[in-house]
């Protein structure tokens, strides 16, 4: 679907345990076919890099590699975005039950995890878009916590 692209994001986490949502922002880069980089700039620098089945988390002083097969509960947070950007319907169908509503001009994709272990961490992913642009990604957790990521074309250098 897309070959590569850069967008800015603002992400809000609504967690019951916290009094108010926490907010982070940064840039999302995608390179076909399977490289997704989420660079958080505020409030703290952190880079998440998804290549193949490995998620690398890099911060100021640490670098951690996570094999997503070992931590399937982390999978929907990243794979949903990557597979949607890649237009990789079969990758999405391996993990989720899909529901597409709306039109090409303005669509909503609802993803519900299939695996029970994944369901424990994510109950639903809702992606809104217009044509080949992603606009919003909302991830709902079974305990009622959720995160909402809003995307817009990058203005960063």
């Amino acid at each position: 679907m897309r070959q590569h692209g850069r967008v800015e994001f603002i992400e809000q986490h609504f967690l019951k345990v916290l009094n108010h949502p926490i907010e982070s922002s940064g840039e999302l880069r995608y390179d076909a076919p399977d490289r997704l980089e989420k660079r958080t700039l505020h409030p703290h620098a952190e880079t998440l890099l998804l290549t193949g089945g490995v998620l690398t988390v890099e911060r100021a002083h640490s670098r951690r590699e996570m094999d997503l097969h070992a931590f399937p509960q982390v999978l929907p947070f990243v794979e949903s975005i990557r597979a949607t950007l890649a237009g990789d319907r079969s990758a999405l169908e391996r993990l989720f039950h899909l529901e597409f509503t709306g039109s090409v001009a303005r669509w909503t994709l609802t993803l519900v995890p299939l695996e029970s272990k994944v369901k424990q961490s994510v109950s639903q992913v809702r992606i809104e878009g217009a044509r080949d642009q992603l606009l919003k990604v909302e991830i709902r957790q079974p305990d009622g916590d959720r995160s909402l990521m809003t995307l817009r074309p990058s203005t960063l250098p």
Partner: protein
Amino acid sequence: MMVRRARVLILWVGCVAFAAFVVARAHYITDLSAFLPSNPTPVQQLLVDQLRDGPATRLILIALEQGDAAARARVSTAMVDLLRKDSQFSSVNNGEAVAGQRDREFLFRHRYLLSEAVSAERFSASGLNAAIKETIDNLSSPAGLLFKSLLPRDPTGELLNISDQLARAAAPQSRDGVWVSADATRALAVAQTAASGSDSDAQSKAIDAIRAAFATAAGSLQPRPNNGVQLRLSGPGVFAVAARAKIERAAVRLSIASSILVVALLLVVYRSLPALGLGLLPVTTGALVGVAAVALGFGAVHGITLGFGITLIGESVDYSIYFFIQSRRTVGNGAAGRSWQRLWWPTVRLGMLTSVCGFASLLPSGFPGLRQLGLYSISGLIAAALVTRFVLPALLPGNFAIRDVTPLGARITARLQGVRRIGRAPIALCSVALATLAIAVLFHDRATLWNRELSALSPVSIQEQDYDAKLRADLGAADVRDLVIVSGPDLESILRSAERAARALQGLVDDKTIGGFESPANYLPSMATQEIRRSSLPSASELRANLKQALDGLPLRPDRLQPFLEDIEATRHAALVTSRDLAGTSLNTGFDALIQHRSDKWDALLPLRSAAPGRPIDMPRVVAALRDAKLDDAQVLDLKQESDTLYAGYLSEAIRFSLGGFLALTVLLLIALRSPLRVARVLAPLVLAVLTVAAGLAIAGVHLTILHLVGMLLIVAVGSNYALFFDRQAHAEEGGSEALTLASLVIANASTVIGFGLLSFSQVPVLVALGATVAPGTFLALLFAAIGASAGNAHAQHS
């Protein structure tokens, strides 16, 4: 006469029965101890402990190759699942995150005693603020979400800290949920056996269990024909088991083959079955007495003594050959071997004694394996010679007859006529030239002549060693070549020392001298450290006040953290963590592997990792760092270097002793022959043969090992018999048939060359070393002795 004969036989049967009794009851050991010093220095003792029972010896490295990545991962998961249920293994790891519920509970319950981050500062208002802020930040990352549910009880993220602490040992990378090599073509796993690595039987069973689990796991995949995943194992235990099987196989196969060949040779020569049977009596008696003497002298017999011993007393087959052939003229009439005893026995006895002198040089060695071989050969040869002298004549049947080999001898004598015509001076010149050439070669290669690495003796091929190194590099943590060892009278004292050493080592990690290290205190801090952490925990009221201040500006309400307050208060009144608490968890394996204790001495091991794969650690800097930290009782051990030093010590010691043995042998000959010239003539062919063989090996690019040295001893031991017969022929007033003497020597040499020549076709480097030295060496010794004697005769005839 009959009475004496009966007495001799009764004595012999009695001795054999006693020896058989001792041999049957003897204790046999197949572990590494044959190679380890019997009176070790403290550092050597550490080395011995490590090589015998150290954590490194208990590791079996498992690689799955071929097939596709997904198939390898599935086989790995299923196989490890089976092995984890097997009590033979104290741990099996393929990277799967199965740190059991129990482990997590243990770590979580004791987090405020186990986490290195715990201090009074950490629970002050500002410390709490920083720690909680970081935990909240983590929540916005998918990785941090894993800890979300723990926030109310663990707002400072101590569990994450402890995980990092334990993960300090570098882990290999994972794909599809299991460890894989750097190039991702192999799936990897590590099994640690409960039994020590030197217990070859237990290792063998463990290896079988892994193969069986692999077969089951691979078989349970859908039967896809191209699945084709292959299992490959490596590690010290695997090598030891393979080596044992290989040596046993090689020894059995080669000794059967050489026995058949030697027996065939003797049958052709003797054309007499009784002669064949009787001819084997000296060597079998010698072997039995040799093993019995070692069992009595050392208390236990090493596997290598049994393996090599028989080849060392191969000389005793020669004794019966000399006896039958040389006494042929008189055999059959009543005089039997009596004239042989008068004419030839003194020469055989002298030859035997020179061999004993040679082998005696093995006795003072610090290498228990060599000492045993020395005692075995000496007692075996003496027994074999005595059987030849006293028992064989007593057992000869009245109508005993073997084929006349005079024609063979005559043909050889005719060949030597040519040598006689050349004359003495040119032959002497040639000998000097050959010796000079050989010495020049040896001098030129002197730097690389000897292989001083212990691995030279290893029956493991270079390819297998390389493969092992590759797996170790991929697995990162598993290589324990460099260790810091701290000792003390009890567990608490060594844990405290380990913590002090860890602080010094952390400095080396920071400046990249080392890549990292492990410590038992990472699993179980000392009581002193735990006590400090416990007493740094604030009281409930103080913590509540600090927390209120700390949460100012953070999106977290203090009442959310009630469970945290409760847990801290509980820890303040809880007992400290002991090794007993650790025992129920899988963490205990990691801890146990780093702790050793014997009676009242405890050692903590801190294995070091190099900063980059293949880069050696700068050990002097490690030593200096520990010294600066005033850790005087800490020892630094480089296993490979120490074991090489040990072996190099054995080697130079063995070379020195061999030269001493040669000196003793010269003195013995001087006393027996009473003529320096005759002694020189006896020794010259032997020295020339040894030099030529050594130079030949050097030219062929072989680096000499301790087994080559033993081979050279054998050349001298066996060759001295040849040279002494020629000497006797030249000097005795009443000489036997020259043709018969020559024939007996040629046949004896043929049997030696066959036996040792076969060894050099073996796959086992140590057997090859022995074979490739002795077979050509004894042949050359006979050739040089015969040429020298002929030239000498020519001279005598001319004058």
